[in-house]
């Protein structure tokens, strides 16, 4: 069974490579041809220099440059780039390895070569030719370029993202105590299905559990009804002290636009009725001013 290295057929009678399409013949010389055969027969394996010298030149005395020179000649004949080494790869301090992906079998050429990308699989019998060598090399180089570019962009992104933090780490970070961490507690109430309520509290005092549903049931009920009528929903974030109640009402319409009302009520514990009234009126104004969703 003849094998092809891309479209080059090994012709042992001529010690040459014969192009299957053009008929071009590249004579390799006896030792270069044996070297190519040895590499191909052990494709995918790293062959040491001693192994190759013994296999090719047997017991002959050869110079140090004989093997590298032969490898160079084979690469040139096969169109392999000495820098990229796609077909015959130099493994530093180990030897050389022939890339089995470049080997095809012409007598079963109606079947394409493996496409699953498993490097350790020999192409099964009947695999057809791959694309021309130059195209394949070009494709590999393009992918390499893309991958290198992607890695480069990722590095730039990471540098841009983290450099300010790295720079900032030289400065003293905000020195706040753990007591000031924000606690976000959801207050659920089935009475207001269109409103989500969250209580904010800086610190870990578990006794600080003001409930908006207890202080403003009337306002929440009225706002809930208005949201239902307008087919909107809202989230309320609030925090309180003795003197002030601070609320952020976030209303969302069907277009995913949100409208925020920040409400600060001083002396909020003065009267429940007025508290409900102020909150509802402010919320109503905000909801009424929301433009129709287009």
């Amino acid at each position, binding site marked *: 069974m003849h094998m092809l290295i891309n479209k080059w057929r090994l012709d042992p009678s001529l010690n040459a490579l014969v192009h299957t399409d053009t008929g071009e013949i590249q004579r390799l010389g006896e030792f270069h041809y044996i070297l190519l055969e040895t590499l191909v027969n052990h494709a995918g394996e790293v062959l040491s220099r001693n192994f190759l010298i013994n296999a090719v030149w047997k017991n002959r005395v050869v110079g140090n440059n004989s093997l590298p020179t032969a490898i160079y000649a084979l690469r040139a004949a096969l169109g392999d780039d000495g820098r990229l080494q796609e077909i015959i790869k130099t493994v530093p301090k180990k030897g050389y390895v022939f890339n089995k992906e470049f080997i095809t079998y012409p007598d079963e050429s109606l079947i394409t070569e493996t496409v699953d990308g498993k490097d350790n699989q020999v192409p099964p019998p009947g695999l057809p030719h791959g694309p021309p060598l130059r195209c394949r090399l070009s494709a590999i180089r393009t992918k390499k370029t893309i991958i290198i570019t992607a890695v480069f962009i990722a590095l730039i992104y990471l540098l841009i993202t983290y450099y300010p933090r790295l720079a900032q780490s030289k400065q003293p970070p905000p020195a706040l105590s753990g007591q000031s961490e924000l606690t976000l507690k959801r207050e659920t109430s089935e009475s207001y299905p269109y409103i989500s309520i969250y209580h*904010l509290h800086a610190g870990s005092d578990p006794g600080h559990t003001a409930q908006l549903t207890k202080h403003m049931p009337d306002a929440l009920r009225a706002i809930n009804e208005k949201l239902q009528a307008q087919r909107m929903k809202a989230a309320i974030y609030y925090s309180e002290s003795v003197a002030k109640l601070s609320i952020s009402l976030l209303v969302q319409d069907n277009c995913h636009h949100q409208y925020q009302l920040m409400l600060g009520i001083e002396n909020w514990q003065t009267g429940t009725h007025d508290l409900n009234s102020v909150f509802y009126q402010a919320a109503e104004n905000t909801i009424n001013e929301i433009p129709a969703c287009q």
Partner: protein
Amino acid sequence: MKYQHVSNLFYYLIFMLSMICVSLPASAAIVRTDIVFYDLMTANQRSYSLHMLPTAKGAQVILHRNDKAFSLSTAIATCFNRQTSSQPQGYLWLKEQSTQYTDPTLLPILNFTKSNRLRVSMAPLANAQSVLLDRDSLTVLVVDPTMMTLGTSGCQH
């Protein structure tokens, strides 16, 4: 091929990033913020419109009082230490304050912020939004990336 898995992964990532970018405009965004201050004791009410645009260090803020000509323009620098906690704490600095006319009710906070930073706690919400609690003035505010940059860039003097 040797790089097929890597390149397929790369194409997959590109595809996913594209999908994320396309879906971003569908996320909720805060398009308007109204502020109302009310004193239940005196029945005094003030209403403002708040406009915020993100900057590299924080935000450019314009606060306009609805019933008067008063307006305040200021740059806010944010300094949050996100690395130490999932709910960071930090500061807001009000810089380059520029006011048109006066609003006596805002003088205390404006004078305070000229020489003090506002201590702020933050908690992340959905849609890349964050809820801020200014512990000095006890003010709750929800912001999104179209309003303010929350990070450490503003920490530098």
